[in-house]
């Protein structure tokens, strides 16, 4: 079966566009082919052209969109900044992409009660920026935090480089306003740590836009610790660095971040950020500890001892805020920097029990060798959350398929040692057909029934999360074979 066979054909697209323009105004409905192409992608390697794109600016707009879509039976695909890595914000079977990028107001900040109410299009980092002068921050910090939206984070239950200490998005969302597929507006959760109702906030966070469209998010704010120390451990190999990770966690000092970058990652990212990372190290471990100022010297000493015991040849400490920012820029720019190695990259987001890290790293590299591909490893070592990045060139015939087969094997290896499909990037239309690897038919059926309770007509982000009769292979980014000479002589 092909995607064309399951595309949800809209009865009268022009009438639908007119009806949407009537409620939103002409500039906020995209129907021109060029405009639609700009919404056929997100941060992943999948592409699908939507039928329309709309830009709500309020909850009322979203209600109106949902009602019109319902009349026409059109699917709805909510989209934040489009930085997602699993194809969650594209429309594989067509429909209306609902871009939340014009709902980006911070509605209220309540420092005394440590929460803020924001619209879903607000950029993650802007929440922290709005409160950092007062010593607060919003904890979940994905690498894309400078660009990704809170709504997208809610959809994917995003993690970040401090997940080790602070948890993921679901631990930081107190309440939600959501428009259901029939246009009903519901308030879920509240402002406090525990709500007497069923935990529907917990249900919606991570539901990838399959239940409704979130229009307001009440996020938890946290107080900055008094002091922070950021260190780099330079190791000869990933195995040594992995053992250091295990030892540091076992020591009980409670690091807030343990992030690993391997040699190829450093090669890609160093020209972009100039953080002074050594090109010849097998692995670089980025370690952060926070707390009361007096405590940090001792914590840092323990970290250093444990790194040295695991053959670290050098430990660097960020002396200034600028230097600390550089270390983090190296880590957070790693995915994007893959563009320096090849025109495309693919990655997985598998999680393995931390104790299996060294073993799985060996397996990943063995698979890569067998397929003749390169792998750059950058990952949340403290959480056992791998991100093997495979740079490749989609213009080379057969390469895309080879890369997909290799990554599938890597993912299977992770699942085989008791791991899971995704740590934080979401399932989307990329890993939905792997869901039976970790869930029984009964498990999946229970989830399907829940989805149906919210969305009986299956119009909310269809073909995502749950296994489908077609695979994402059809939607992989294709590029025509490269031309021998292309110049600018015009």
């Amino acid at each position, binding site marked *: 079966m092909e995607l064309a066979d399951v595309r949800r054909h809209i009865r009268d697209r022009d009438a639908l566009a007119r009806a949407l323009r009537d409620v939103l105004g002409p500039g906020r409905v995209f129907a021109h082919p*060029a405009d639609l*192409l700009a919404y056929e992608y997100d941060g992943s390697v999948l592409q*699908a052209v939507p039928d329309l794109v709309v830009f709500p600016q309020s909850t009322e707009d979203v209600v109106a969109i949902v009602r019109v879509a319902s009349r026409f039976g059109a699917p709805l695909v909510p989209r934040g900044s*489009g930085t997602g890595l699993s194809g969650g914000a594209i429309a594989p079977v067509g429909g209306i992409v609902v871009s939340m990028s014009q709902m980006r107001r911070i509605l209220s900040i309540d420092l005394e009660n440590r929460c803020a109410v924001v619209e879903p299009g607000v950029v993650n980092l802007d929440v922290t920026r709005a409160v950092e002068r007062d010593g607060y921050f919003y904890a979940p910090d994905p690498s894309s935090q*400078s*660009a990704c939206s809170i709504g997208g984070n809610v959809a994917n239950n995003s993690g970040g480089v401090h997940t080790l200490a602070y948890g993921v998005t679901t631990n930081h969302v107190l309440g939600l306003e959501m428009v259901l597929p029939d246009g009903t507006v519901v308030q879920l959760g509240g402002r406090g740590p525990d709500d007497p109702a069923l935990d529907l906030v917990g249900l919606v966070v991570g539901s990838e836009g399959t239940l409704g469209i979130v229009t307001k998010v009440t996020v938890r704010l946290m107080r900055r610790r008094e002091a922070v120390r950021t260190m780099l451990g330079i190791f000869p190999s990933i195995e040594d660095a992995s053992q250091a990770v295990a030892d540091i966690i076992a020591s009980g000092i409670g690091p807030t971040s343990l992030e690993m970058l391997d040699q190829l990652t450093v090669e890609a990212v160093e020209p972009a950020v100039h953080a002074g990372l050594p090109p010849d190290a097998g692995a670089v471990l980025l370690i952060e500890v926070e707390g009361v100022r007096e405590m940090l010297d001792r914590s840092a000493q323990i970290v250093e001892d444990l790194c040295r015991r695991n053959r670290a040849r050098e430990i660097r400490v960020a002396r200034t805020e600028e230097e600390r920012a550089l270390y983090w820029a190296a880590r957070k720019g790693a995915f*994007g920097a*893959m563009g320096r190695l090849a025109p495309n990259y693919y990655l997985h987001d598998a999680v393995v029990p931390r104790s299996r890290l060294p073993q799985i790293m060996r397996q990943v590299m063995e698979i890569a060798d067998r397929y003749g591909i390169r792998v750059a490893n950058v990952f949340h070592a403290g959480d056992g959350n791998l991100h093997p990045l495979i740079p490749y060139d989609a213009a080379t015939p057969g390469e895309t398929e080879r890369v997909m087969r290799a990554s599938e094997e890597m993912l299977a290896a992770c699942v085989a040692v008791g791991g899971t499909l995704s740590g934080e990037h979401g399932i989307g239309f990329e890993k939905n057909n792997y869901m039976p690897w970790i869930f029984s038919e009964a498990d999946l059926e229970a989830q399907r029934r829940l989805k149906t309770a919210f969305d009986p007509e299956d119009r909310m982000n269809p073909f995502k999360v749950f296994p489908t009769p077609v695979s994402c292979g*059809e939607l992989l980014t294709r590029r025509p074979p490269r031309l021998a000479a292309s110049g600018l002589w*015009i």
Partner: protein
Amino acid sequence: MVTQTGAVPAAAPIPRLLIPELDKCIQCGFCLPHCPTYRLLGVETESPRGRIHLIEAAAQGRIPIDRRFEEHMYVCLGCRACETACPAGVRFGTIIEAARAEIGPTGSAPARRMTLLALRHLLPHPGRLRAGARLLRLYQRSGAGRLARALHLLPRRLAAMDALLPPIPDRLFAPAQEVFPAIGPRRARVGLLSGCVMSILFAGVHEATIRVLQRNGCEVVVPRGQTCCGALNVHNGEREAARAMARRNIDAFLGAGVDAVVINAAGCGAASKEYPILFRGGAARDAERAARYAALCRDVTEFLDELGLRGPLGEVRARVTYQDPCHLAHGQHIRRQPRELLRAIPGVELVEMEGADRCCGSAGIYNLVQPHYARQLLEEKVTAVARTGAAVLVAPNPGCMLQLAAGVRAHGLRMEVCHLVDLLDRAYAAHAAP
């Protein structure tokens, strides 16, 4: 090819638009929050990632180059803030310029013709440019301008342009001598690119640049054979005239035997350093000479920083804020040098504004082509500037100076807008006559 189900009309592929720079973008989206037009509009089509995707689609023949495509390409400021943000090192400026070369200048048919006329027949000829400036000055001073405006005689578009034009000053830059001797032992022989707008509207800045360079032991050559750098041509899709202009500058400066070509306009500096891209795929001789020329080009702040500023500087007591010209910060990666030069002036207190490296909306002729967006960006900028409480706003680029001066005036702020060399020149003068 692409298996798509959406209704996308076929068009002819444009192989020459499939430039290698396109391959680097992996669509991570890190550029989005740094793009002024995405910040303003919140739509992917007005973002760097979206534009790159559309350019690639047009190159592959997935979409035609139509009015809508043109609009997206020209809503872009060309500020290149996305280049600074990009982890993959995508050279967006090169990509957007290639796309615009396929379109040509933007606007209605008469506007296009006017832009082309100026790009092809005015900018390359310093003599015509000066004659035009004198005519304009006459128009501005005779009262004809006031009359035309009062009677609404000008078409709307022209009236808007008229309002943006600064008064043409008494003096145009046309020095009698070609060589200015170094003061003290000679440390270098440098050329000065006099450019188009700078020569007409900022003769004072050129004179200050020459004096500051002389004081730093530089013999300064202003070769007669030079012309406008061609940046506006490249930014507006008119490459052929740009190449001719580049060749003239390359000949003039390589022939002058200088150690460096000093440029005091950020836009000209960025364009000059990118001459090799302009000649890519062309004759080997052009490519080789363009590379040699580009290697000599230095922004004046970059050059003085490399050379080491020579004292003694007198005191200039002022609270100063610094606007990073886009084509200096993003186009040439120069941020530290101007700030250090400012701090080197006794009495100067440098106060940073929020978003100093965000575009002011000038962007070449952008404020003429997209006045609506340009005004919104300027509003945001002037608000940030006002918050610093500075008395002097330094912006070492003519477009920024004009735009910011207009914004400062409109807000009734008591603030001087000037070039960095103006302050250095003042500091040297203050020492000579305290």
